[in-house]
């Protein structure tokens, strides 16, 4: 398998409504910034991989066809990836696999969402006839699993607010972050209404417009500062399966075990310096701490409570502010992967974790049934 590196990262400033650009303009902005970071132009890229969440979000069928021009894909291979909320992560992994397999030397990966063009909750709750199930949007879907986590682990109720505050404080250090709430504290979060109890308003992610892009390169085509890919893994599992653990899905555990094995990681908490993990509802931090092996079962919330996952903790999670601070859904996974790369390249700016050498990028999607992860490092594997 050939080595693969991230040599360019480009992001748009995430915000509620990007009224000034079309979808094409949005993805191009991220793509050009990634190319600029790598010191390259579209001419230097062999193929484009684009990811986004369901077409129903913007009502554009097969957006990859419409966006080929904006991404300089004329005469080049281009493909679209879709794995619900994890799609950004999967897009990066598909791009990496094209490098690792020796198919291409340089690949542009880009993912986006322009949530302001419609309403994601509407798109996720279309009320099909003959449905035997009561589906009430993403928050309504995940709230019961959070409640079950709280029951199993005995976690006190304020843990969710700690994460909601921590990630938003980190966001104040990230110029691209959407939600900026100076002075946010536990009281602020607790004063917001319960939307899907036990999930409060400020314990959920915002709805954002934005795009993120990366340039991936084979070893012979590296320019600038590389973040080396040390492991990649994807897993999925059926949403309806008897005995499925919806709090800590087996697919997530298997995916983590696979990516750690490739990267030689046996103790994630000690060996990983910074993690960008898909946490769209604050309680998913302690839940994924356990699912990803950073804490024993039932102990994740203690790690959160101890401050270990804060920017100045021993294992910072979501130094960028995470999905809780910026959520252009299709791009949210790719942003995690890109932020992991920025950290090991030493290019994360004010939210840089000092001396970060090894970072985890993580995304999940659907009913916590699709997982995508990578480990990137400063050193060549």
């Amino acid at each position, binding site marked *: 398998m050939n080595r693969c590196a991230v040599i360019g990262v480009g992001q748009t400033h995430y915000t509620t409504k990007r009224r000034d650009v079309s979808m094409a303009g949005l993805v191009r902005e991220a793509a050009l910034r990634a190319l600029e970071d790598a010191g390259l132009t579209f001419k230097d890229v062999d193929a484009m991989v684009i990811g986004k969440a369901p077409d129903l979000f913007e009502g554009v069928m097969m957006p990859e066809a419409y966006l080929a021009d904006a991404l300089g894909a004329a005469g080049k291979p281009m493909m679209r990836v879709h794995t619900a909320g994890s799609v950004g992560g999967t897009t990066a992994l598909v791009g990496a696999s094209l490098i690792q397999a020796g198919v291409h030397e340089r690949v542009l990966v880009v993912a986006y969402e322009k949530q302001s063009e419609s309403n994601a909750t509407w798109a996720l709750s279309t009320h099909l006839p*003959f449905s035997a199930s009561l589906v009430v949007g993403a928050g309504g879907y995940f709230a019961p699993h959070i409640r079950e986590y709280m029951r199993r682990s005995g976690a006190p109720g304020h843990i969710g607010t700690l994460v909601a505050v921590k990630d938003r404080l980190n966001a104040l250090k990230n110029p691209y972050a959407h939600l900026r709430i100076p002075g946010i504290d536990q009281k602020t979060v607790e004063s917001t*209404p*319960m939307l899907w109890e*036990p999930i409060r308003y400020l314990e959920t992610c915002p709805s954002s417009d934005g795009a993120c892009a990366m340039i991936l390169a084979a070893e012979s085509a590296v320019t600038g500062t590389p973040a080396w890919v040390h492991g990649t893994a994807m897993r999925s599992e059926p949403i309806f*399966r*008897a*005995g499925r653990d919806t709090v800590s899905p087996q697919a997530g555990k298997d995916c983590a075990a696979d990516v750690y094995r490739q990267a030689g990681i046996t103790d994630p908490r000690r060996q990983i310096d910074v993690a960008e993990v898909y946490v769209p509802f604050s309680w998913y931090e302690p839940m994924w701490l356990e699912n990803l092996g950073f804490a024993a079962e039932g102990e994740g919330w203690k790690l959160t409570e101890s401050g270990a996952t804060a920017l100045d903790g021993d294992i910072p999670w979501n130094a960028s502010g995470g999905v809780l601070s910026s959520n252009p859904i299709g791009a949210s996974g790719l942003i995690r992967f890109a932020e992991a790369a920025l950290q090991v390249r030493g290019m994360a700016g004010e939210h840089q974790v000092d001396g970060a050498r090894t970072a985890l990028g993580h995304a999940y999607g659907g009913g916590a049934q699709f997982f995508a992860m990578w480990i990137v490092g400063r050193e060549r594997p």
Partner: protein
Amino acid sequence: MSSDPLVARHVLEFPGGYTRTTGPVIGRFLSELRARRVVGVRTAEGRVLVPPLEYDPATGEPVTGEYVEVGPAGTVTTCAWVDEPLDAHPLDRPFAWALIELDGADTALLHAVDAGDPKAIAPGTRVWPVWNDHPTGGITDISHFVPEVTKIVAPVRTEYRLQAGGALRVFLEGVARGVFLGGRCPSCAKVYVPYRMSCPECGAVIGEPVELPDTGTITTFAINNLPDPRAPQVPFVSAYILLDDADIPMIALVGGVPAHEVREGMRVRAVWAPPEERTASMTSVRWFAPMERS
């Protein structure tokens, strides 16, 4: 003797209206307007005046004979909102007076902008002219300006004919009769509800449906504070309910109990619509209610 003052209406209007000899510069501007073009005139210093003037206000020198087409779009430099238009105003609805610097011009033109809402216009807003249907050579040949198109609405509507799958039909016809039908995997023995024809775990073909009790246990739940057309009120509880003898929970509404009294592990029973109201749809199950209360 009346104390009323002597009052009379008096109109002073020159019959037929005054004429205004335009001179060559203003005349050219108005002629171009009649042809639906906007021109400015260049000054000796190179600035483009729109509307044109005969003498450069900066120097007092005559302007050059060079006319420059500008616009048609421009940028608002400042504006004032008119909430209650007067009879003489160009629009009969609230509008903005705005100074508009047309593209290519160095000065701004005063005109009306039909922005609809005061929030829709500010310095920097891009505007385009709407032309009068019958231009005559006057500034009102531009009826008014409107904000630039920045967004369109793209209605998408796809109508499907949806047929319930064979397995789902079996389940829903059971619901119409007031029973829940599940399926037992012959290989792993797990009981799936709603009834399905293959096991998602091992892929084995599932045979005849089995009737399940309409009682079960709440495994976990959410209290939803956002309204939903399928719930009678807010807050409502959506719960994972593991029917007795089943191995996978169903998501359903919980009723007959205040939301905050619902607990994990609570025993519940389906509350069915009266037989005459039941159809092959989940609306035949009103909700699940605690057994100790029902």
